[in-house]
Protein backbone atom coordinates (compact mmCIF):
# COMPACT_ATOMS: atom_id res chain seq x y z
CA UNK A 1 0.00 0.00 0.00
CA UNK A 2 1.37 3.31 -0.98
CA UNK A 3 1.97 5.71 1.88
CA UNK A 4 0.61 9.01 0.56
CA UNK A 5 1.95 12.39 1.55
CA UNK A 6 -0.43 14.47 3.64
CA UNK A 7 -1.80 17.58 1.93
CA UNK A 8 0.33 20.75 1.85
CA UNK A 9 0.94 23.77 -0.34
CA UNK A 10 4.19 23.56 -2.30
CA UNK A 11 5.72 26.95 -2.94
CA UNK A 12 8.72 27.60 -5.19
CA UNK A 13 10.02 31.14 -4.65
CA UNK A 14 12.68 32.31 -7.10
CA UNK A 15 14.43 34.78 -4.80
CA UNK A 16 15.72 34.53 -1.25
CA UNK A 17 13.69 37.60 -0.28
CA UNK A 18 10.47 35.92 -1.41
CA UNK A 19 11.41 32.73 0.46
CA UNK A 20 12.09 34.71 3.66
CA UNK A 21 8.70 36.43 3.34
CA UNK A 22 6.93 33.08 2.95
CA UNK A 23 8.65 31.72 6.06
CA UNK A 24 7.60 34.74 8.09
CA UNK A 25 3.90 33.81 7.72
CA UNK A 26 2.63 33.61 11.32
CA UNK A 27 -0.66 32.00 10.29
CA UNK A 28 0.62 28.75 8.84
CA UNK A 29 3.19 26.08 9.72
CA UNK A 30 5.97 26.30 7.15
CA UNK A 31 8.92 23.99 6.55
CA UNK A 32 11.84 24.61 4.20
CA UNK A 33 12.64 21.78 1.80
CA UNK A 34 15.83 21.23 -0.20
CA UNK A 35 16.11 17.84 -1.89
CA UNK A 36 13.33 16.40 0.27
CA UNK A 37 15.15 13.22 1.28
CA UNK A 38 14.70 13.99 5.02
CA UNK A 39 11.44 15.96 4.92
CA UNK A 40 9.46 13.63 2.61
CA UNK A 41 9.89 10.39 4.63
CA UNK A 42 9.07 12.29 7.83
CA UNK A 43 5.91 13.64 6.24
CA UNK A 44 4.92 10.22 4.93
CA UNK A 45 5.29 8.85 8.45
CA UNK A 46 3.33 11.87 9.82
CA UNK A 47 6.24 12.90 12.07
CA UNK A 48 5.76 16.38 10.66
CA UNK A 49 2.68 17.73 8.85
CA UNK A 50 3.42 21.30 7.77
CA UNK A 51 0.74 23.23 5.92
CA UNK A 52 3.31 24.75 3.57
CA UNK A 53 6.56 23.50 2.07
CA UNK A 54 8.87 26.21 0.76
CA UNK A 55 11.25 24.74 -1.79
CA UNK A 56 14.61 26.47 -2.21
CA UNK A 57 15.42 24.66 -5.46
CA UNK A 58 14.44 27.50 -7.83
CA UNK A 59 16.64 30.08 -6.10
CA UNK A 60 19.67 30.23 -8.39
CA UNK A 61 21.97 31.99 -5.91
CA UNK A 62 21.83 29.01 -3.52
CA UNK A 63 23.40 26.61 -6.02
CA UNK A 64 27.12 26.13 -6.41
CA UNK A 65 30.54 26.35 -4.80
CA UNK A 66 32.96 29.28 -4.89
CA UNK A 67 36.39 30.12 -3.49
CA UNK A 68 37.08 33.70 -2.40
CA UNK A 69 40.41 35.63 -2.25
CA UNK A 70 41.16 34.36 1.27
CA UNK A 71 40.81 30.79 0.00
CA UNK A 72 37.59 30.20 1.95
CA UNK A 73 35.15 27.82 0.31
CA UNK A 74 31.50 28.85 0.22
CA UNK A 75 28.92 26.18 -0.57
CA UNK A 76 25.37 27.27 -1.43
CA UNK A 77 22.66 25.52 0.59
CA UNK A 78 21.08 23.87 -2.48
CA UNK A 79 24.34 22.28 -3.67
CA UNK A 80 23.80 18.51 -3.72
CA UNK A 81 25.97 16.07 -1.81
CA UNK A 82 26.94 14.47 -5.14
CA UNK A 83 28.18 17.83 -6.44
CA UNK A 84 30.22 18.33 -3.26
CA UNK A 85 31.64 14.83 -3.45
CA UNK A 86 32.72 15.42 -7.08
CA UNK A 87 34.13 18.89 -6.42
CA UNK A 88 37.88 19.46 -6.62
CA UNK A 89 37.80 22.76 -4.72
CA UNK A 90 35.92 21.72 -1.57
CA UNK A 91 38.25 20.69 1.32
CA UNK A 92 39.06 17.04 0.66
CA UNK A 93 37.78 15.76 4.00
CA UNK A 94 34.42 17.47 3.45
CA UNK A 95 34.04 16.12 -0.11
CA UNK A 96 34.89 12.62 1.10
CA UNK A 97 32.39 12.85 3.97
CA UNK A 98 29.67 13.98 1.53
CA UNK A 99 30.36 10.76 -0.40
CA UNK A 100 29.85 8.77 2.79
CA UNK A 101 26.30 10.06 3.30
CA UNK A 102 23.42 7.75 2.35
CA UNK A 103 23.24 6.22 -1.15
CA UNK A 104 24.11 7.48 -4.66
CA UNK A 105 20.44 8.25 -5.43
CA UNK A 106 19.98 10.21 -2.20
CA UNK A 107 23.23 12.14 -2.74
CA UNK A 108 21.90 13.28 -6.14
CA UNK A 109 18.86 14.88 -4.43
CA UNK A 110 20.03 15.73 -0.92
CA UNK A 111 21.52 19.17 -0.34
CA UNK A 112 24.18 20.45 2.03
CA UNK A 113 21.65 22.79 3.65
CA UNK A 114 19.35 19.85 4.28
CA UNK A 115 22.12 17.70 5.69
CA UNK A 116 23.31 20.43 8.08
CA UNK A 117 19.70 20.92 9.27
CA UNK A 118 18.92 17.17 9.28
CA UNK A 119 16.32 16.37 11.92
CA UNK A 120 17.61 14.41 14.90
CA UNK A 121 16.88 10.69 14.72
CA UNK A 122 15.80 8.01 17.18
CA UNK A 123 14.54 4.42 17.16
CA UNK A 124 11.32 5.62 18.78
CA UNK A 125 10.43 8.29 16.25
CA UNK A 126 11.72 7.18 12.86
CA UNK A 127 8.95 4.60 12.68
CA UNK A 128 5.60 4.29 10.95
CA UNK A 129 2.67 6.18 12.40
CA UNK A 130 0.89 2.97 13.41
CA UNK A 131 4.00 1.75 15.30
CA UNK A 132 4.30 5.07 17.14
CA UNK A 133 0.61 5.17 17.94
CA UNK A 134 0.78 1.64 19.37
CA UNK A 135 3.82 2.36 21.54
CA UNK A 136 2.56 5.79 22.55
CA UNK A 137 3.87 8.98 20.95
CA UNK A 138 7.17 10.08 22.50
CA UNK A 139 8.25 13.52 23.71
CA UNK A 140 9.50 14.68 20.29
CA UNK A 141 6.28 13.37 18.77
CA UNK A 142 3.91 15.41 20.94
CA UNK A 143 3.70 12.92 23.84
CA UNK A 144 4.97 13.44 27.38
CA UNK A 145 7.53 10.64 27.78
CA UNK A 146 10.92 10.08 26.21
CA UNK A 147 10.96 6.30 25.67
CA UNK A 148 14.76 6.27 25.63
CA UNK A 149 15.06 7.82 29.09
CA UNK A 150 11.56 7.88 30.64
CA UNK A 151 12.66 9.80 33.73
CA UNK A 152 14.33 12.47 31.62
CA UNK A 153 12.55 15.66 30.63
CA UNK A 154 14.66 16.12 27.52
CA UNK A 155 14.64 14.41 24.15
CA UNK A 156 17.70 12.29 23.33
CA UNK A 157 17.24 11.97 19.56
CA UNK A 158 20.61 11.88 17.79
CA UNK A 159 22.34 14.41 15.57
CA UNK A 160 23.01 12.22 12.51
CA UNK A 161 24.53 14.66 10.04
CA UNK A 162 27.97 13.60 8.83
CA UNK A 163 28.64 17.02 7.36
CA UNK A 164 27.77 18.90 10.57
CA UNK A 165 30.46 16.95 12.43
CA UNK A 166 33.07 17.70 9.77
CA UNK A 167 32.05 21.36 9.39
CA UNK A 168 32.43 21.91 13.15
CA UNK A 169 35.89 20.33 13.06
CA UNK A 170 36.88 22.60 10.16
CA UNK A 171 35.65 25.70 12.00
CA UNK A 172 32.98 26.48 9.40
CA UNK A 173 30.32 29.18 9.56
CA UNK A 174 26.79 29.36 8.24
CA UNK A 175 24.95 32.34 6.82
CA UNK A 176 21.31 32.62 7.88
CA UNK A 177 18.69 34.88 6.34
CA UNK A 178 15.26 36.01 7.44
CA UNK A 179 13.03 39.05 6.98
CA UNK A 180 14.97 40.61 9.87
CA UNK A 181 18.25 40.44 7.98
CA UNK A 182 21.27 38.24 7.58
CA UNK A 183 23.84 36.88 10.03
CA UNK A 184 26.93 34.71 9.86
CA UNK A 185 27.51 32.42 12.85
CA UNK A 186 30.06 29.70 13.64
CA UNK A 187 28.37 26.43 12.71
CA UNK A 188 29.08 25.13 16.20
CA UNK A 189 26.65 27.77 17.48
CA UNK A 190 23.91 26.49 15.14
CA UNK A 191 23.48 23.31 17.20
CA UNK A 192 21.84 22.73 20.54
CA UNK A 193 22.24 19.47 22.47
CA UNK A 194 18.50 18.87 22.63
CA UNK A 195 16.75 16.40 20.32
CA UNK A 196 13.68 18.60 19.95
CA UNK A 197 15.14 22.09 19.53
CA UNK A 198 18.38 20.92 17.99
CA UNK A 199 18.93 24.12 15.95
CA UNK A 200 19.47 27.46 17.68
CA UNK A 201 18.21 29.54 14.75
CA UNK A 202 14.68 30.91 14.55
CA UNK A 203 12.08 28.87 12.66
CA UNK A 204 11.88 31.50 9.93
CA UNK A 205 15.61 31.66 9.27
CA UNK A 206 16.95 30.03 6.13
CA UNK A 207 20.42 28.48 6.01
CA UNK A 208 21.82 30.12 2.89
CA UNK A 209 25.39 28.88 2.69
CA UNK A 210 28.22 27.15 4.51
CA UNK A 211 31.62 28.84 4.62
CA UNK A 212 34.67 26.65 5.24
CA UNK A 213 37.90 28.54 5.97
CA UNK A 214 41.01 27.62 4.01
CA UNK A 215 42.56 24.79 5.94
CA UNK A 216 46.29 24.80 6.59
CA UNK A 217 46.40 21.66 8.65
CA UNK A 218 45.34 18.07 8.36
CA UNK A 219 41.82 16.73 8.71
CA UNK A 220 40.05 13.38 8.71
CA UNK A 221 36.59 11.88 9.14
CA UNK A 222 35.81 8.34 10.22
CA UNK A 223 32.28 6.96 10.24
CA UNK A 224 30.95 3.92 12.08
CA UNK A 225 27.94 2.17 10.55
CA UNK A 226 26.75 -1.38 10.10
CA UNK A 227 26.67 -1.30 6.30
CA UNK A 228 29.19 0.54 4.14
CA UNK A 229 26.30 1.93 2.10
CA UNK A 230 23.21 3.94 3.02
CA UNK A 231 23.40 4.00 6.83
CA UNK A 232 23.36 7.05 9.05
CA UNK A 233 26.42 7.35 11.32
CA UNK A 234 26.33 5.35 14.56
CA UNK A 235 29.37 7.47 15.34
CA UNK A 236 31.31 10.00 13.32
CA UNK A 237 34.70 11.34 14.36
CA UNK A 238 36.08 14.43 12.64
CA UNK A 239 39.45 15.88 13.56
CA UNK A 240 41.36 18.85 12.25
CA UNK A 241 44.83 19.58 13.56
CA UNK A 242 47.96 21.59 12.83
CA UNK A 243 51.54 20.73 13.68
CA UNK A 244 54.75 22.74 13.89
CA UNK A 245 57.94 21.78 12.09
CA UNK A 246 59.02 19.59 14.98
CA UNK A 247 55.76 17.62 14.69
CA UNK A 248 54.24 19.11 17.83
CA UNK A 249 50.47 19.62 17.70
CA UNK A 250 49.67 23.34 17.87
CA UNK A 251 45.92 23.22 17.21
CA UNK A 252 43.28 20.49 17.40
CA UNK A 253 39.56 20.08 17.08
CA UNK A 254 38.06 16.70 17.85
CA UNK A 255 34.34 16.42 17.12
CA UNK A 256 32.01 13.49 17.79
CA UNK A 257 28.85 13.03 15.73
CA UNK A 258 25.99 10.56 16.10
CA UNK A 259 26.48 10.39 19.85
CA UNK A 260 24.35 13.29 21.20
CA UNK A 261 21.72 15.66 19.88
CA UNK A 262 24.45 17.97 18.55
CA UNK A 263 28.01 17.50 17.30
CA UNK A 264 30.13 17.28 20.47
CA UNK A 265 33.61 18.73 20.94
CA UNK A 266 35.96 16.50 22.94
CA UNK A 267 37.59 19.51 24.57
CA UNK A 268 39.68 17.70 27.18
CA UNK A 269 41.21 15.52 24.51
CA UNK A 270 41.87 18.56 22.31
CA UNK A 271 43.62 20.37 25.16
CA UNK A 272 45.62 17.29 26.02
CA UNK A 273 47.17 16.86 22.56
CA UNK A 274 48.01 20.52 21.95
CA UNK A 275 51.67 21.03 22.85
CA UNK A 276 52.48 17.35 22.48
CA UNK A 277 53.93 15.07 19.83
CA UNK A 278 51.34 12.47 18.84
CA UNK A 279 53.11 9.39 20.12
CA UNK A 280 51.22 6.13 20.58
CA UNK A 281 50.87 6.86 24.31
CA UNK A 282 49.47 10.34 23.65
CA UNK A 283 46.98 8.94 21.12
CA UNK A 284 45.80 6.37 23.62
CA UNK A 285 45.32 8.88 26.42
CA UNK A 286 43.57 11.39 24.08
CA UNK A 287 41.21 8.63 22.93
CA UNK A 288 40.38 7.81 26.55
CA UNK A 289 39.71 11.48 27.34
CA UNK A 290 37.51 11.81 24.25
CA UNK A 291 35.02 9.26 25.59
CA UNK A 292 34.26 11.45 28.62
CA UNK A 293 31.69 13.79 27.05
CA UNK A 294 30.04 10.87 25.18
CA UNK A 295 26.74 9.65 26.69
CA UNK A 296 25.29 7.46 23.93
CA UNK A 297 21.80 6.08 24.60
CA UNK A 298 20.15 2.91 23.35
CA UNK A 299 18.26 4.69 20.59
CA UNK A 300 19.93 3.64 17.38
CA UNK A 301 21.50 0.53 15.88
CA UNK A 302 23.95 -1.32 18.21
CA UNK A 303 24.18 -0.76 21.98
CA UNK A 304 25.24 2.32 23.89
CA UNK A 305 28.22 0.63 25.60
CA UNK A 306 29.54 -0.52 22.26
CA UNK A 307 29.22 2.98 20.78
CA UNK A 308 30.96 4.54 23.78
CA UNK A 309 33.81 2.03 23.40
CA UNK A 310 33.99 2.83 19.70
CA UNK A 311 34.51 6.53 20.50
CA UNK A 312 37.95 5.71 21.89
CA UNK A 313 38.74 3.30 19.04
CA UNK A 314 37.69 5.75 16.31
CA UNK A 315 39.34 8.79 17.95
CA UNK A 316 42.61 6.87 18.23
CA UNK A 317 42.43 5.83 14.57
CA UNK A 318 41.45 9.32 13.44
CA UNK A 319 44.30 10.87 15.42
CA UNK A 320 46.57 8.38 13.69
CA UNK A 321 45.28 9.71 10.34
CA UNK A 322 46.22 13.30 11.14
CA UNK A 323 49.44 12.42 12.94
CA UNK A 324 50.60 10.92 9.64
CA UNK A 325 54.36 10.42 9.45
CA UNK A 326 55.03 11.07 13.11
CA UNK A 327 58.27 9.76 14.55
Amino acid at each position, binding site marked *: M*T*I*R*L*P*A*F*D*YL*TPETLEDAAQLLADPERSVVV*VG*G*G*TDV*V*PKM*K*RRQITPEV*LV*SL*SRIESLHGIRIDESGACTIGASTTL*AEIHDSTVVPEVFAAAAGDV*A*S*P*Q*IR*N*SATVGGNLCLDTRCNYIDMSDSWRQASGYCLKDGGDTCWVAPRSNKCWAISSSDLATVAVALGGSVRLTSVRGERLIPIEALYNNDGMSYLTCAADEILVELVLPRGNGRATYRKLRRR*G*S*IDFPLLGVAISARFDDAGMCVFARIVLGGIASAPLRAIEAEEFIVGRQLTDEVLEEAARLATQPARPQDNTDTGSRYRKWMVSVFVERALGDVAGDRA
Partner: protein
Amino acid sequence: MADHILAIDVNGDRHRVLVTDQRTLLEVLREDLGLTGTKHGCDVGECGACTVLVDDKPVLSCLVIARQVDGSSVQTVEGLAHDGKPDLLQEAFAELGAAQCGYCTPGMLISARSLLDDNPDPTTEEVQAGLAGNLCRCTGYIKIFDAVRLAAARDRGL
Protein backbone atom coordinates in the same frame (compact mmCIF):
# COMPACT_ATOMS: atom_id res chain seq x y z
CA MET B 1 -3.46 21.87 -2.32
CA ALA B 2 -4.33 23.41 -5.64
CA ASP B 3 -3.87 21.42 -8.81
CA HIS B 4 -0.95 22.19 -11.09
CA ILE B 5 -0.11 21.14 -14.60
CA LEU B 6 3.19 19.31 -14.53
CA ALA B 7 5.20 19.24 -17.77
CA ILE B 8 7.66 16.36 -17.90
CA ASP B 9 9.43 14.41 -20.56
CA VAL B 10 9.37 10.67 -19.82
CA ASN B 11 11.46 8.34 -21.99
CA GLY B 12 11.42 10.95 -24.74
CA ASP B 13 7.64 11.53 -24.68
CA ARG B 14 6.30 14.84 -23.47
CA HIS B 15 3.51 14.67 -20.92
CA ARG B 16 1.31 17.19 -19.20
CA VAL B 17 -0.18 15.82 -16.01
CA LEU B 18 -2.61 17.44 -13.59
CA VAL B 19 -1.10 16.95 -10.12
CA THR B 20 -1.81 17.98 -6.55
CA ASP B 21 1.09 19.40 -4.55
CA GLN B 22 1.52 16.22 -2.52
CA ARG B 23 1.87 13.93 -5.55
CA THR B 24 5.23 12.12 -5.78
CA LEU B 25 7.04 11.38 -9.02
CA LEU B 26 6.56 7.65 -8.35
CA GLU B 27 2.78 8.11 -8.16
CA VAL B 28 2.76 10.13 -11.38
CA LEU B 29 4.76 7.49 -13.23
CA ARG B 30 2.85 4.45 -12.01
CA GLU B 31 -0.66 5.79 -11.51
CA ASP B 32 -1.04 8.67 -13.98
CA LEU B 33 1.17 7.46 -16.82
CA GLY B 34 0.72 3.70 -16.25
CA LEU B 35 4.48 3.10 -16.27
CA THR B 36 4.52 0.32 -13.67
CA GLY B 37 8.04 -0.84 -14.52
CA THR B 38 9.29 1.50 -11.81
CA LYS B 39 8.62 -0.41 -8.61
CA HIS B 40 7.06 0.78 -5.41
CA GLY B 41 9.12 -0.60 -2.52
CA CYS B 42 9.71 0.92 0.92
CA ASP B 43 8.23 4.38 0.17
CA VAL B 44 10.79 6.11 2.41
CA GLY B 45 14.05 6.10 0.47
CA GLU B 46 15.72 2.97 1.79
CA CYS B 47 15.42 0.33 -0.94
CA GLY B 48 16.09 1.84 -4.38
CA ALA B 49 13.29 -0.08 -6.18
CA CYS B 50 11.79 3.21 -7.43
CA THR B 51 15.06 4.55 -8.92
CA VAL B 52 14.63 6.59 -12.11
CA LEU B 53 16.88 9.05 -13.93
CA VAL B 54 15.94 12.71 -13.61
CA ASP B 55 18.02 14.81 -15.99
CA ASP B 56 20.35 11.79 -16.33
CA LYS B 57 20.94 11.33 -12.60
CA PRO B 58 19.52 8.42 -10.58
CA VAL B 59 17.13 9.55 -7.85
CA LEU B 60 14.47 7.90 -5.71
CA SER B 61 11.10 8.74 -7.26
CA CYS B 62 9.23 7.94 -4.00
CA LEU B 63 11.00 10.91 -2.36
CA VAL B 64 10.62 13.36 -5.23
CA ILE B 65 7.67 15.73 -5.01
CA ALA B 66 6.43 15.75 -8.60
CA ARG B 67 6.38 19.53 -8.85
CA GLN B 68 10.06 19.57 -7.90
CA VAL B 69 10.89 18.07 -11.33
CA ASP B 70 8.55 20.22 -13.40
CA GLY B 71 10.26 20.74 -16.75
CA SER B 72 12.74 17.87 -16.26
CA SER B 73 13.34 14.78 -18.32
CA VAL B 74 12.81 11.42 -16.69
CA GLN B 75 13.97 7.99 -17.81
CA THR B 76 12.41 4.82 -16.45
CA VAL B 77 13.17 1.16 -17.11
CA GLU B 78 10.63 1.25 -19.97
CA GLY B 79 12.97 3.68 -21.75
CA LEU B 80 16.02 1.40 -21.72
CA ALA B 81 15.14 -0.71 -24.74
CA HIS B 82 15.52 0.83 -28.19
CA ASP B 83 13.46 -0.18 -31.24
CA GLY B 84 12.27 -3.29 -29.44
CA LYS B 85 15.84 -4.33 -28.67
CA PRO B 86 16.75 -4.67 -25.01
CA ASP B 87 19.60 -2.64 -23.54
CA LEU B 88 22.89 -4.54 -23.17
CA LEU B 89 22.30 -4.49 -19.42
CA GLN B 90 18.90 -6.12 -19.79
CA GLU B 91 20.39 -8.83 -22.03
CA ALA B 92 23.21 -9.49 -19.57
CA PHE B 93 20.83 -9.63 -16.59
CA ALA B 94 18.65 -12.17 -18.44
CA GLU B 95 21.60 -14.25 -19.60
CA LEU B 96 23.28 -14.50 -16.20
CA GLY B 97 20.08 -14.92 -14.22
CA ALA B 98 20.74 -11.68 -12.35
CA ALA B 99 17.12 -11.53 -11.20
CA GLN B 100 15.37 -13.83 -8.76
CA CYS B 101 12.02 -12.32 -7.77
CA GLY B 102 12.79 -9.38 -10.08
CA TYR B 103 11.35 -6.65 -7.88
CA CYS B 104 14.65 -4.77 -7.47
CA THR B 105 15.64 -5.30 -11.12
CA PRO B 106 14.24 -2.09 -12.70
CA GLY B 107 16.01 0.02 -10.06
CA MET B 108 19.21 -2.00 -10.45
CA LEU B 109 19.09 -1.53 -14.24
CA ILE B 110 18.60 2.22 -13.97
CA SER B 111 21.41 2.67 -11.42
CA ALA B 112 23.66 0.43 -13.51
CA ARG B 113 22.88 2.37 -16.72
CA SER B 114 23.84 5.61 -14.99
CA LEU B 115 27.03 4.01 -13.65
CA LEU B 116 28.09 2.75 -17.11
CA ASP B 117 27.30 6.09 -18.74
CA ASP B 118 29.78 7.72 -16.31
CA ASN B 119 32.28 4.88 -16.15
CA PRO B 120 32.33 2.42 -19.07
CA ASP B 121 34.83 0.08 -17.42
CA PRO B 122 33.99 -0.20 -13.71
CA THR B 123 35.76 -2.56 -11.34
CA THR B 124 33.60 -4.82 -9.20
CA GLU B 125 34.14 -2.40 -6.29
CA GLU B 126 32.93 0.49 -8.44
CA VAL B 127 29.85 -1.51 -9.46
CA GLN B 128 29.17 -2.19 -5.78
CA ALA B 129 29.49 1.53 -4.98
CA GLY B 130 27.25 2.46 -7.92
CA LEU B 131 24.55 0.01 -6.81
CA ALA B 132 24.94 0.79 -3.08
CA GLY B 133 21.48 2.34 -2.97
CA ASN B 134 19.68 -0.66 -4.44
CA LEU B 135 18.71 -3.50 -2.14
CA CYS B 136 18.10 -7.05 -3.36
CA ARG B 137 16.37 -9.11 -0.65
CA CYS B 138 16.86 -12.37 -2.57
CA THR B 139 20.59 -11.66 -1.97
CA GLY B 140 21.52 -12.17 -5.59
CA TYR B 141 24.14 -9.46 -5.74
CA ILE B 142 26.99 -11.51 -7.24
CA LYS B 143 25.17 -12.24 -10.48
CA ILE B 144 23.99 -8.63 -10.67
CA PHE B 145 27.57 -7.35 -10.34
CA ASP B 146 28.72 -9.90 -12.95
CA ALA B 147 25.93 -8.86 -15.34
CA VAL B 148 26.83 -5.18 -15.08
CA ARG B 149 30.48 -5.94 -15.85
CA LEU B 150 29.49 -8.22 -18.75
CA ALA B 151 27.30 -5.48 -20.23
CA ALA B 152 30.13 -2.98 -19.74
CA ALA B 153 32.56 -5.25 -21.60
CA ARG B 154 30.10 -5.73 -24.48
CA ASP B 155 29.44 -1.98 -24.54
CA ARG B 156 33.17 -1.46 -25.07
CA GLY B 157 33.06 -3.97 -27.93
CA LEU B 158 34.84 -6.77 -26.06
